[in-house]
């Protein structure tokens, strides 16, 4: 079977507005990492041109995160710092600017900064070209999700029984990571579960599981986990639970 993907690109112009430019000026943001969802990524050249007209001293950086196909594109799953491929530039940049609608994609940039304190945190500006509106995500917007993550990690360390979840989706399928989990927690009993879609309802019958470790979509361990009655942690965080706990400043 062949697969064809269609970007569904935004088919109108993207025009930055004074609200955005004034905000950058007020905050003295001069070095900006630019991202967009796939619907808006083809407009980033136009956005860069508008910045040159506004202030030629502003440096715009575009990078290609691990799983994306185009430079400047952001996926909701690129939510660990090294997924962003920013390398050593973190301390040099002033903020992120996301072009697009909705919160799903820019929240990846929020979660990528979970181990940054208030001083290290880079504000995430979001410009929605459809609504012509500017909004932002700040360090405190991570608080609820990270408090839950902190609680889940503590529960993991104290648990006796772990449910490890892998999915058969082509872009995921990390069944083999159960071995790493077993190496990390040799004294805990690990049951392995395989599915094609994860919802909280399918987990509820397994009441003998203390905590779930997820190797599928990493958003499950963050904003989805915040609302779950069961405890769920991403495999990446489960494997370095103690270190993550020491860095969570919430």
């Amino acid at each position, binding site marked *: 079977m062949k697969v064809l993907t269609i970007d569904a690109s935004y088919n109108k112009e993207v025009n930055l507005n004074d609200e955005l430019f004034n905000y950058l000026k007020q905050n003295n943001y001069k070095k900006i990492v630019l991202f967009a969802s796939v619907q808006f990524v083809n407009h980033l050249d136009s956005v860069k041109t508008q910045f040159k007209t506004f202030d030629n001293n502003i440096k715009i950086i575009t990078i290609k995160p*691990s799983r994306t196909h185009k430079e400047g594109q952001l996926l909701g799953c690129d939510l660990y710092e*090294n997924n962003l491929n920013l390398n050593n530039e973190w301390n040099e940049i002033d903020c992120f600017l996301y072009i697009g609608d909705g919160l799903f994609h820019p929240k990846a940039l929020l979660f990528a900064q979970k181990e940054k304190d208030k001083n290290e945190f880079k504000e995430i500006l979001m410009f929605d070209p459809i609504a012509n509106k500017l909004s932002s995500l700040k360090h405190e917007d991570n608080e609820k999700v990270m408090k839950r993550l902190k609680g889940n990690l503590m529960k993991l360390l104290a648990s006796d029984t772990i449910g490890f979840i892998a999915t058969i989706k082509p872009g995921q399928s990390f069944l083999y990571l159960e071995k790493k989990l077993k190496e990390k927690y040799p004294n805990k009993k690990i049951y392995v579960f395989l599915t094609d879609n994860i919802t909280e309802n399918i987990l509820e019958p397994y009441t003998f599981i203390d905590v779930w470790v997820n190797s599928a979509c990493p958003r499950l361990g963050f904003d989805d986990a915040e609302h779950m009655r069961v405890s769920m942690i991403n495999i990446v965080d489960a494997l370095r639970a103690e270190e993550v706990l020491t860095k969570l400043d919430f």
Partner: protein
Amino acid sequence: MNYDLELDKVSKYVKEKEAKLVCIQLPDGLKQYSKSIVDELEEKTNSKVIIWLGECFGACDIPLGLDQMKIDLLVQWGHNLFHKAEWSKLGDGLE
């Protein structure tokens, strides 16, 4: 409609690949356009077009088992090519 569904491109691709049975997969925000997509593709090609009823969370989320249903082509809107992360790139500082 703020987004380009590129139906001419899709029709051309369907004909080029001689796909007789096509499955379309749309994220929630575009599902409302499935009727017009099916109508137009069936009109412009000789193919039967069916709609994936389930989720479409991303390009990582290709439905499984379509080969068994003799689907020739899956068209997914709203995403582009997905590069599955290797383990070393999954998270911070892990090997």
